[in-house]
């Protein structure tokens, strides 16, 4: 099997359209930037205050005061713009962000997302995640299908929510699931897996799309 993270990031990138403004969460979602299809122009936002984010600079080539929302050295492309945090979240909350890609601790059949705290264990805070998930036109959860065997795609989240009913698409190494009014629809599946195998790794009941496709790896 090809590297799991690469499979996911590549598949997420196929969701992006020419002219989109996109915000990528820390970790796996960041990899999506490496796979933007050729010929389309996507602008990346860093919610700490700019659009037009480029790749991480090489060691020694860091630019002062230019970090991403994870605090890591970043860069900007021609046509970038810096602004303050109120403007950054006006963009996010105001519906100007075409797509946000985030990881999840849990996600469920109703499009609920939990990714900001595990009560009594780990409370990093929501940062910009609640605004991102509430405000973005399209919310993609990009994550490994399970966490060391623990199931993350549930009928209903048990952890405190990041946002209610906002997730549109779940992309894992096992498949692509769309959140619909009827529940999670499995639209694409990893070519090496059976529907039963994906369902076995998923608590939420999967509705199998009539035109179920093989995931493009």
């Amino acid at each position, binding site marked *: 099997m090809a590297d799991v993270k690469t499979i996911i990031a590549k598949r997420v990138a196929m969701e992006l359209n020419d002219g989109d403004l996109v915000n990528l969460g820390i970790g796996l979602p960041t990899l999506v930037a490496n796979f933007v299809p050729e010929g389309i122009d996507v602008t990346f936002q860093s919610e700490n205050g700019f659009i037009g984010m480029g790749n991480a600079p090489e060691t020694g080539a860091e630019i002062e005061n230019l970090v991403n*929302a994870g605090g890591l050295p970043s860069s900007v492309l021609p046509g970038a713009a810096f602004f303050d945090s109120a403007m950054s979240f006006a963009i996010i909350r105001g519906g100007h962000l075409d797509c946000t890609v985030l990881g999840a601790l849990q996600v469920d059949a109703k499009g609920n997302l939990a990714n900001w705290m595990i009560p009594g264990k780990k409370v990093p805070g929501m940062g910009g995640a609640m605004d991102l998930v509430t405000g973005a036109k399209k919310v993609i959860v990009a994550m490994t299908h399970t966490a060391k065997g623990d199931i993350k795609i549930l009928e209903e989240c048990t952890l405190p929510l990041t946002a209610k009913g906002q997730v549109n698409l779940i992309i894992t190494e096992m498949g692509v699931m769309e959140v619909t009014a009827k529940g999670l629809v499995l639209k694409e599946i990893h070519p090496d897996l059976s529907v039963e195998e994906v369902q076995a790794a998923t608590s939420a009941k999967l509705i199998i799309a009539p035109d179920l496709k093989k995931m493009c790896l």
Partner: protein
Amino acid sequence: MEKIITLEEAVSKISDGMTVMIGGFLGTGSPDLLVDKIIEKGIRNLAVVANDTSFPDQNIGKLVVGKNVSKVIVSHIGTNPETGRQMNAGELDVVLVPQGTLAEQVRAGGAGLGGVLTPTGLGTIVEEGKEKVVVDGKTFILEKPIRADIAIIRASKVDRKGNCVFDKAARNFNPLMAMAADTVIVEADEIVEVGSIDPDQVMTPHIFVNYIVKGAK
């Protein structure tokens, strides 16, 4: 009115128990000398409003480690394990706020608005205990304005009147906090003569700034 004062004079404006806004995002754009001086002076029991508690060895992170702070209102504490430890031990009051909400609350505090009506946090624990307002059939959480006794901010270029220019991602919360505190102190990487900043490029007009200290750069 001479606004340029020494670090010693600046920090003498800050007393135990005050609410202090501190600019910056994971340390980028934070007033390092002012924070170090607060620690040196042993000012305690501060309530800090900031985006995050940074890293343990950086800016606001050091204030937490040094126990100068009894309360933080922030969006993120994940990069500073000591914040989480103090919170769990009941030593530190941590109020977690979505980043975009925090930005608007500070802006509202500075702009004389009665509050912020945001969809962010609906259906999550963020809405608990808060009033909701329905506008044209859509529900919003009413988040209250935030103000502080003191704001300490960081700018890259400041003229002697107090007009500020921020650099790249170091802008973040700085211009918002400059509007929302009774006293505003800016740590300036560079202090320039009045008239040398193009009036179109001023990001924080001088009327918001009470005092200027020279930064370490």
